[in-house]
C-alpha cells in the first residue's frame, strides 16, 4: 500500500509533529515500505491465538495508597524551559471571557 501525502499529514497531526514538505514526501514512501513489509502479518491465521501484551506471568502488583515524600518542587521544576511562581508556564490554552 502507498500512503498519500494527505495521510502522512493526518498522522503527523495526530502525533503533533511539524514536518517539512521534504519529510512528508520521504516518509510517505518509507512508511509505505515498512507497512508493506508488516502486511505479511495479516497472512497468519491468529483466530485462535490470544495477544501478548506482556511476557510476564503476573498481574500488575498493588501497593498501599500511602502518602510518601517526593522531591522538592524546585528540583522538579528545574528542567522546565519556562516557569513562574512554582509552576510550569505555558502559552495560553483557554480564552478567557472579557
Amino acid at each position, binding site marked *: 500500500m502507498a500512503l498519500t501525502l494527505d495521510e502522512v499529514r493526518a498522522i503527523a497531526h495526530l*502525533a503533533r*509533529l*511539524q514536518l517539512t514538505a521534504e519529510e512528508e514526501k520521504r516518509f510517505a514512501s518509507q*512508511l509505505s*515500505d515498512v*507497512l508493506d513489509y508488516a502486511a505479511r502479518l495479516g497472512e497468519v491465521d491468529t483466530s485462535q491465538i490470544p495477544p501478548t501484551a506482556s*511476557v510476564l506471568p503476573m498481574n500488575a502488583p498493588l501497593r498501599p495508597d500511602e502518602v510518601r515524600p517526593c522531591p522538592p518542587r524546585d528540583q522538579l521544576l528545574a*528542567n522546565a*524551559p519556562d516557569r513562574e511562581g512554582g509552576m510550569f508556564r505555558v502559552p495560553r490554552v483557554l480564552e478567557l471571557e472579557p
Partner: protein
Amino acid sequence: MAELTDLTLLEAASALRSGEASSAELTRACLDRIQSIDGQVRAFLTVTDDLAIEQAKAADEQLRDDNAESLPLVHGIPIAIKDVLCVEGVPTTAGSRILEGFRPPYSATSVSRLVRAGAVILGKANTDEFAMGSSTENSAYGVSHNPWNLDRVPGGSSGGPAAAVAARMCYAALGTDTGGSVRQPAAFCGVSGLKTSYGRVSRYGLIAYGSSLDTVGGLARNVGDLAPIFSAMAGHDPLDSTSIPDPAPEINLNGDGVDKLRIGVPKEYFIDGLQPEVETAVRAAIEVFREMGATIQEISLPHTDLALPVYYVIAPAEASANLARYDGVRYGPRKGPGEYPEDYFVTRGELFGTEVKRRIMLGTYALSAGYYDAYYGQAQKVRTLIKGDFEAAFEDVDLIACPVTPTTAFGIGAHGDDPLSMYLEDVFTLPANLAGIPGLSFPVGFDSDGLPIGMQFMAPHLGEAQLFSAAHAYQAAASWHTRWPDL
C-alpha cells in the same frame, strides 16, 4: 604491572584488594585514556571527571576502613552509563536534542544500585536517539566509531558503551536492549554483552522506548566481568511495576554442568545473507561445546521470519505513546511562536531526529482508529506465536546458540537513508525481546577484515545463570575475548 586500563574488571577488583592499585588510580587511568583516544572513538557524550574522582576517593576510603573482601566486586570500578539511563544531576539526553540540557532529579535504579555497590561513574555513553537504531548514526550528537576500524559503526543502540569497553576506556558499561541494542554492538566491538530477562532489572529511570520490550543489561570485556555488574543490578524494585519479585540468581562460573548442557541450533538463523565467515565462526564455537560434552541438536523456531514485522509494529506503537511526553513544557527546550498548540508541533518537529519521527509516525498509524486490529492487535497475536516457539524449544534444550548479526560491523553511512535495510540488521536479536528471554553475546572469532564476530546464547525467562555458566566455560577454552584493538 601492566597499564591499569589493560586489566579486566576482575583483575582490577583484585588489584584494589591487594593494594596494588587504588580506585582513584584506576579512575585517573580511565579518564586519561578517554582524554587521549575518545576524540577518535567518540564513545562518550559527557565525561563526569569530578564526580568520578569524588566517588573513587570515597571507594578508596571504604576499602581502607571495611573488610575489603566483603565489598561487592564492582566496588571502586570505573564504568560508563548509556545515556538513556538517568544519573542524578548529570546531563542525560537519550541522544536527542529534545532532552538537551536535561539533568534528571533522580538516578535509574540500575545506576543507583551500582553506585551503592561502590562503582565509579566515568560518564554517559553515546546511543542512537531514544535507543532507536543499530549504529549510533541516529544520535543527535554524532556517530561513535568502532575501535577495531574507525570507519565502521560500533553497532547500536548501545554503541557508545560497546566502543568504550572495547577501547579500554572503562571496565564495563550499562546498556539497554529493546531489540538487540546490547548484543549487536557487543558483537560488532568484540566484547561480551548481556540482555537480561524482561523484568529482571528495574526499568525505573530508563528513558522509555518500547515498554514491553525494554531491558537494562551490561557490557564488559569478558563474561566473568559481566557477572558482578548483573548481580549488582538485578532483583526486585517496587518502583517498577514490571519488576519480578525474584532476587538476583547466584552466578556460578566454575564450569559445572557444561557437559550436561543440551544446546539447540535453530535452522532459521542460518539464512541466505549470513556472512559465510560469521556462520563458520559460530559453528566452530558450537563445536567447542560438543567437545566439552554438551549435546548439540538442530531445532526449529518456525515463526522467526515474523519477528521483524512484529517488532516494527509493536516497538514504534509503544514508542509513539512513550514519546508523547516530550512537549517542551516540563523538560528540554521549547521551540515555536509561543502559541498553543503550535509550540508542540514545532518543538517536536524540530528537536526529534528523522528516525524517531519515522517511528512515532509508524506507531501512531498502527494505533490509529481503523488500523489498530490489523497492525497492533495482529502483531500482539503473532508475538504469542514467537514466544510459543521458544517455550516449545526449551522443552528439549537448555540453551539456544546462534549468530548475533548477519554480518560483522558495517561501514558508517552504508545503509544510507534506507530504514528497512537497517532494520534487517536486528533480525537475530529481536526475537528474544519479543519473548522476554535473556541473551548473551560474546566474541567467537574475527573476519578477514579483522572485525569481531559474535555468537549469542538465549535461555528461558530468568535463565541468566545458565547463560553465564556456558559462555564463561567457552571463554575458559577460547581466547577471542582477550584480543584488543590497536588504539
